[in-house]
């Protein structure tokens, strides 16, 4: 019974009854709790049953309320007898029965909660149907009643339990386009680094931030551009940071430079590439600077930096302006020519004359250039001839000098040859000496060089290994972060689901109890079956025995009756037998009677216990006390009446 009591108490608490914490079973229910619980449960079942949750002091009022509550229960279909005494003079089993019935009658919000769909798509579907339902019921708002296209309403969301008040959520609905404008973002500056201790802001920048820079929301010239501008800026910054991180991870890490250095190098590379392009196009150009084509090809050149090709096809605003300017100029010139015929003629003549002169001059220039080229060719030829001659004369001079020396030495040939040989030998000796010395010096140097080279190689491989490690770590870091994010999301979803599910807290209690009951019933059925079998067996045995008895008796009876006519002793024996049989029958009847009586006694004992449970005596005392109070109240009322009369 404790399980039932627990469920009843939990259910009553969940609909808002104030049951003290120390009340653990229905046995401990006081009249106040019974009335409170019944009144709350009735109000929850149907709102038309509204009874005070506290009983008044007057006896007659109490009586009336309790009778009304009993009637309400009857109306709802309570099968057993019910009256005011169930509430006022309660006994445990009746109260339990009443509350079990009431709890069963309570509206099933928990079953709705369990039917709540889970999963992303189901939640989305639910949201769609909810919104449609809300909109289907929401009234239409006149265009004039809307503030810049917004209908403002309050959506009512019922509370978690029928007792708790509903929450009101302001609900704005976009209707119409009066207050809507197209996306336009302007450049904004988000100040950064003002509070950075490690890398303090430069003085000028700080001054700019503190003084001239307007607040972020005041930066866009049009107020309605504030939100899009800021959102654009934030996402642009975030994307740039992400892009840079990717480049750094892909390319920068392998260079072995620090991040700042790599950034500098990249910037220099881009600058030099741009400068190169500008220079080459300036050389190639016809003096007009960047023409239309140049601008276009510059755009395509910029494309070569990024493989995304964001700038293709569209062209920049600059190029559009350029185009516009050029076409306008041409048109203007044509207009002037059309209006002034003469001027045009004169100009044409002039132009022709000038053209002729130009042609002549350019022919002259061409001729001159040709001559210059010829002269240049001649000069270079002559120069090369000169060089050849000079080198020839130098070799000849050297030959001449050696020959002169040989002629000088010729008169004392032998002596001079010896001298020369001695000189040669000494010089070879010296050479060998020097070679050995050099070897001595060289060996340790080579050794040192080798060791240094090795260590250098080792360091290189080490650094490469470390780089690979760093890369791995980053990879794993990213993976872990991703996992954490996914798990976080899952956690959030699960918590949301869990929150939805906590409404039916006593569900597990119910199931456990049901399972237990089923188990008990099974056991009891088995027991009953056993007892039945035993009873049947006993019955059979009894029948069998009584049959045997009957047969034996009749057989004996016949046997003795036959002899009884002849023998006196036999006749006596027959008489004894008859009396024995009779007495035995009486004995059996007595035994049966005893069994019946015992059963009856047990029944009576049970009844007695029930009566004892109904605590008649204290209730009787209470009833008499209440009776006396009613009498007193009546007397007081009649006294009042007579006093007024």
């Amino acid at each position, binding site marked *: 019974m404790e399980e039932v009591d627990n469920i009843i108490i939990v259910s009553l608490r969940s609909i808002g009854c104030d049951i003290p914490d120390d009340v653990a079973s229905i046995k401990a229910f006081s009249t106040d709790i019974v009335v409170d619980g019944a009144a709350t449960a009735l109000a929850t079942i149907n709102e038309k049953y509204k009874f005070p949750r506290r009983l008044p002091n007057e006896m007659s009022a109490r009586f009336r309320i309790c009778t009304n509550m009993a009637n309400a229960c009857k109306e709802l279909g309570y099968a057993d007898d019910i009256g005011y005494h169930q509430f006022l003079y309660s006994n445990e089993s009746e109260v339990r029965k009443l509350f079990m019935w009431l709890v069963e009658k309570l509206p099933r919000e928990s079953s709705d909660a369990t039917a709540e769909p889970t999963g992303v798509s189901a939640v989305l579907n639910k949201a769609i149907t909810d919104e449609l339902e809300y909109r289907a019921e929401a009234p239409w708002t006149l265009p004039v009643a809307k503030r810049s296209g917004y209908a403002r309403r309050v959506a009512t969301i019922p509370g978690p339990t029928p007792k708790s008040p509903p929450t009101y959520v302001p609900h704005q609905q976009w209707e119409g386009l009066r207050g*809507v404008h197209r996306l336009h973002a302007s450049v904004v500056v988000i100040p950064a680094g003002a509070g950075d201790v490690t890398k303090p802001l430069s003085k000028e920048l700080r001054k700019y931030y503190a003084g001239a820079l307007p607040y972020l*929301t005041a930066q866009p010239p049009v107020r309605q551009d504030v939100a899009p501008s800021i959102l654009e800026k934030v996402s642009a*910054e975030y994307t740039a940071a992400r892009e840079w991180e990717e480049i750094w991870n892909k390319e920068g890490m392998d260079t072995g430079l620090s991040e700042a250095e790599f950034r500098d190098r990249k910037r220099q590379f881009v600058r030099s590439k741009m400068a190169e392009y500008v220079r080459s196009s300036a050389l190639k150009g016809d003096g007009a600077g960047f023409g239309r084509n140049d601008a276009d090809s510059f755009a395509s050149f910029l494309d070569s930096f990024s493989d995304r090709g964001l700038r293709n096809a569209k062209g920049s605003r600059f190029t559009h302006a350029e185009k516009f300017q050029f076409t306008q100029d041409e048109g203007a010139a044509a207009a002037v020519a059309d209006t002034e015929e003469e001027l045009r003629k004169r100009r044409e003549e002039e132009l022709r004359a000038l053209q002729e002169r130009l042609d002549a001059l350019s022919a002259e220039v061409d001729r001159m250039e040709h001559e210059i080229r010829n002269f240049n060719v001649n000069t270079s030829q002559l120069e090369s001839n000169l060089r050849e001659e000079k080198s020839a004369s130098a070799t000849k001079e050297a030959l001449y000098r050696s020959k002169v020396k040989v002629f000088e030495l010729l008169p004392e040939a032998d002596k001079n040859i010896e001298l020369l040989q001695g000189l040669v030998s000494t010089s070879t000796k010296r050479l060998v000496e020097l070679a050995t010395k050099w070897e001595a010096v060289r060996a340790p140097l080579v050794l040192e060089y080798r060791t240094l080279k090795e260590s250098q190689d080792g360091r290189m491989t080490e650094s490469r290994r470390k780089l690979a490690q760093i890369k791995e770590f980053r990879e794993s870091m990213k993976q872990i972060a991703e996992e954490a994010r996914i798990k976080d999301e899952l956690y959030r979803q699960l918590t949301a689901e869990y929150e939805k599910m906590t409404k039916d807290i006593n569900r597990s209690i119910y199931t456990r109890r049901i399972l237990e009951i089923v188990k008990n019933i099974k056991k009891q059925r088995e027991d009953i079956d056993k007892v039945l079998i035993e009873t049947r067996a006993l019955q059979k045995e009894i029948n069998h025995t009584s049959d045997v008895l009957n047969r034996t008796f009749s057989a004996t009876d016949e046997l003795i009756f036959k002899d009884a006519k002849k023998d006196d002793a036999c006749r006596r024996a027959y008489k004894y037998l008859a009396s024995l049989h009779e007495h035995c029958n009486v004995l059996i009847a007595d035994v049966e009677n005893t069994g019946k009586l015992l059963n009856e006694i047990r029944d009576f004992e049970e009844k007695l216990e029930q009566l004892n449970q109904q605590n008649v005596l204290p209730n009787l005392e209470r009833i008499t006390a209440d009776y006396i109070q009613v009498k007193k109240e009546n007397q007081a009322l009649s006294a009042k009446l007579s006093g007024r009369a």
Partner: protein
Amino acid sequence: MELPASVTGGLGLLGNKAHFATPAAGVALTKAAVSVLLKVTTEAEAVDGEAALKGVDRATLKQAYAALVSLLLEAAKHNKTEADVKAALEDAKVSEDRAGPIAAVYAAEIVELRTVLSSTGFGFPHVVDADWRLDYYMKDNQLEKVNQPVYLIRLKTEQNGGKGPDVQFSASLEELQDLVNTLKDASRNLKPVSI
């Protein structure tokens, strides 16, 4: 919600006692940011006139303000809950006792903030009103006797930021009934979906 380093850095200032001495200053700044975004006040009134923000370094104040505005808009854009905003603030090293009240200010104003954001966009012309007239069409140049009733319908529309072009069409009684039935069918179809 993805925030760049400049924004998280600015949010971090709110958690720094050296810059914002009390949690109330952060809340006051958030309220100021919200009221400016909702076009209730100007920065000069809301930020410069706020007593709790007196004595904060101007550059720091501007950075924190910019970061808060970015956070509020970004969170409203993604329809983040109070807990999400609180988590974002805590990620930016703002302590829990400071992040909580700021997130609460956001939660109180999320509907209004989302209204501001949804005022950027475009849409088809929106029907605001309809005029009708029933004509009796007696004859024309080719036919002497026509004698038919004709409805003349004019739909008034509005477009981005104001009045749009009127749509005018004529219809016979049957055509109009067909149109009305088609539209009724459309609105009736809402019922089975919403249950």
